[in-house]
């Protein structure tokens, strides 16, 4: 049996190996353009055959005798005004430099004196030129030159920066990332105006050629982590990257674990704060979600607003959130365990009222909880996917069916409705969506354990959870790091948050290369002289 499986598996593997990737062969790597414009034109016309968005424009340089030129680019991704005003116009109507232009220095003259465009590259390789054109550069070919000029005049449609919908805050900056990688990286650069902020660009995906930027602060981020991130991204061999989630799945440490090991965020302030602490950020083109690594579990419990409100408020909110996490994970299972196995734990009067409410309910508590939780998850999922105009219908149905009808029909007990409602609210209190969804998934496991083994089952489940969390690492950093390994200095920014001036060191396991962060003893002090204003 086992042998048979391995045999089949090996066969499959070999089959996969024989299917070579044919896509790589369409563009010849080393082919170079020639001096003949007509021949070059033929090459590119062939490459961009049936690509409707590519336009070709042949024109003549305003010299005497005229030199033939050709420009081509991607329609819709170039700034048409700039192309006309700054590229085509100066070339066609050369003013005052007619005598200086000779056929042998056309290239340099065009590059250095004629085109007022900042970003200019030259290339000979056909593949590079075509890649550049597809990445929204304008290509210029000159008759008699075996070099092409690539001009950066890109300007495609992009969304305006708006407040991130997944991580709203009451106080804090209102800008969120958009789908353009360059805008996103520069948004971070605006916050960290230092040359230490390094950004390295890679291309991932055979077809999509998605731009990926690895951003970190030199001297703070661990070089080993940066190298590891780069290596893991370079190792990706795929045709398409649609979202940073795809990259995340390729590079995360433990693919079996449901726990998110990489933080994704839409907030530039959050990314900047993490960069300064020594994390590495990975920006992916075409998505507003930026990946941050390495992270610990407790980063998913933090919101950037914790740092903007006062430290007492921040701490209180974080404590509340930690409590919410426990409820979201264990709420229904504790209820099941206590009502089915350990009734003695409940005070007598409460026990009577629960027993009264459960009277006539046909299902055991576990089944009841399962029905309610599944219904709630269905409602939530439907609410997310529905078009907004119909969304209200779901909430009406949910409120009526779950809240009222199910109870009055005697299918579920009112106390179970309360438990499910509290759990649902608690699971939304977690600021990170991927973190919350894991808790929701594990909740069902715990409910099953509680229904079969009571509190003993819950303890075993917690034990399993601890073991799993202890074995996880995110880019070398233990996943539950301020607790295990115990680093008390990092508890300043954990479930409590000390005042900003007290957080004078970076996290020990992530930013240990540049440990000190700010001066000591910066606590605001009362003025030494007694102020007498308003008393005279």
């Amino acid at each position: 049996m086992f042998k048979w499986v391995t045999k089949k598996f090996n066969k499959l593997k070999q089959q996969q190996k024989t299917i070579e990737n044919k896509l790589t062969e369409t563009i010849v790597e080393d082919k170079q353009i020639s001096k003949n414009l007509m021949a070059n034109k033929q090459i590119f016309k062939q490459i961009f055959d049936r690509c409707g968005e590519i336009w070709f424009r042949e024109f003549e340089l305003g010299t005497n005798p005229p030199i033939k030129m050709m420009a081509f680019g991607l329609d819709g991704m170039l700034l048409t005004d700039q192309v006309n005003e700054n590229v085509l116009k100066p070339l066609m109507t050369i003013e005052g430099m007619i005598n200086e232009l000779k056929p042998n220095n056309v290239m340099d003259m065009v590059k250095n004196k004629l085109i007022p465009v900042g970003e200019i590259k030259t290339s000979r390789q056909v593949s590079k030129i075509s890649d550049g054109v597809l990445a929204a550069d304008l290509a210029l070919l000159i008759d008699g030159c075996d070099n092409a000029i690539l001009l950066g005049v890109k300007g495609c449609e992009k969304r305006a920066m708006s407040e991130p919908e997944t991580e709203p805050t009451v106080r804090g900056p209102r800008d969120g990332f958009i789908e353009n990688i360059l805008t996103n990286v520069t948004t971070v650069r605006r916050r960290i105006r230092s040359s230490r902020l390094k950004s390295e660009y890679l291309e991932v995906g055979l077809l999509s050629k998605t731009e990926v930027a690895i951003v970190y602060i030199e001297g703070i981020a661990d070089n080993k982590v940066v190298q590891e991130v780069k290596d893991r991204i370079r190792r990706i061999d795929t045709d398409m990257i649609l979202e940073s989630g795809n990259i995340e799945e390729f590079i995360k440490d433990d693919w079996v674990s449901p726990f998110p090991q990489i933080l994704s965020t839409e907030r530039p302030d959050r990314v900047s704060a993490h960069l300064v602490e020594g994390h590495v950020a990975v920006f992916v083109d075409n998505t507003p979600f930026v990946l941050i690594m390495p992270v610990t579990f407790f980063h998913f419990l933090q919101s950037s607003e914790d740092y903007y409100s006062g430290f007492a408020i921040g701490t209180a909110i974080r404590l509340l959130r930690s409590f919410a996490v426990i409820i979201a994970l264990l709420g229904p299972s504790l209820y099941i365990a206590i009502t089915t196995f350990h009734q003695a734990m409940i005070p007598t009067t409460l026990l009577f009222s629960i027993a009264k409410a459960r009277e006539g309910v046909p299902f055991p508590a576990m089944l009841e909880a399962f029905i309610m939780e599944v219904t709630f998850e269905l409602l939530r999922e439907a609410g997310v996917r529905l078009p907004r105009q119909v969304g209200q219908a779901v909430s009406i149905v949910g409120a009526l069916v779950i809240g009222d009808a199910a109870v009055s029909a005697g299918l579920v007990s009112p106390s179970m409705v309360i438990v499910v409602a509290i759990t649902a609210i608690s699971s939304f209190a977690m600021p990170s969506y991927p973190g919350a969804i894991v808790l929701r998934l594990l909740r069902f496991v715990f409910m099953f354990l509680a229904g079969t083994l009571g509190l003993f089952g819950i303890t075993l489940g917690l034990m399993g959870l601890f073991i799993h969390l202890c074995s996880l690492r995110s880019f070398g950093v233990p996943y539950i790091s301020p607790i295990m390994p115990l680093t008390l200095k990092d508890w300043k920014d954990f479930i409590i948050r000390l005042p900003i001036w007290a957080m004078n060191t970076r996290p020990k396991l992530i930013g240990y290369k540049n440990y000190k962060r700010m001066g000591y003893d910066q606590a605001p002090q009362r003025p030494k002289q007694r102020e007498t204003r308003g008393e005279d």
Partner: protein
Amino acid sequence: MLDNGKISWKQITLLIVLARFILTLSFLPFFSAPPKNQDLWISTILSFPLQLMVALPIFIIAKRFPNMSLIHVLKSYLGKFGSFIGFLYAWFFLHSSALTLREFGEFLTTSPYPETPIIVFMSISILFAIPTVRYGIEVIGRIAEIIFPIIMFSVFLVVVLLAKDMDFKQVFPICEDGILPIVSGAFILASRTKEFLFIGFLMPFIKNSKNIKKSIIYASMILSLSSAIISLIVLTTFGIEQAKNRTFAFYSAVRLICVGNFFERIDAIYIGIWVLGIFVRVAIYYYLTVIVTAWILDLKDYQPLVLPIGAIIVSLSILMADSIVELEKFLSYKIYTWYQLLFSVAIPVLFLLFMAIKKKEPKKT
């Protein structure tokens, strides 16, 4: 190296304390042993120096051969005979983990879950222990570091909540039967701390092996202090006569907790916390069984041993005794003390004597 994990001296200290303390917490075996009167809290404190003596032979061996486990030392000096002694230790650890599992199952089926068959608890616990053992010593050490504060905090909570039920007159008269029973009680208590063997066997995994002296001292200190606290709690709430007759005396004490008519019957939570601790104990003995066997047999990988040894542990724990009465007979101080001393003191001392006499060079294997 079979396992690349590393643990710190703090973690090994906590492992020793947890593994030793957690069974005491429920079974309180010292109530049935001498001095058999209200002086037993004195013997728990007196056990501190005696525990250090128990740990001494292991400490000497560990100091002499850092980065080598006891198995490797035995094998390199005694060859085949060393492997035989190694097998004895493997049996000892196997037996210990099966014993723990059985006691744990007995506790759960006696008190909170009388209708569930005992094999359910045992097999489920082993099922959860299997991945732990597969992850290796590093995860076990980390788990111990997480669970230790939880257990200590809960004991502290019990002390606070039970304070109003305690009657310190129960402690008097002190030294009713003279000093000798107290000392022998302390000796029996100390002999039960076979967990110092962990240091001998986990030496290759300890990060900074210079600190093992500190580790032994701290572990004995925490152990004798916490045993003293537990025995005082039980003694002052029940009195010695009642306490002796209860199988799970501390558990009964926790059941008495009642604050303000709504915070009561927290025994279920206590069971939960206790399960966490027992789990660490089962896991560490299970792991030691597996890794010792792998070392003796010179295996390259210990993973294939995990599942079969787990199955053996479960079946052994069921077959070892017919009932809890039989089990307690074996665990009583008259038999169990000598059984443990054989492994934790006698064999290491004999080996040290052998080395002192022969002054042999290690055999090259």
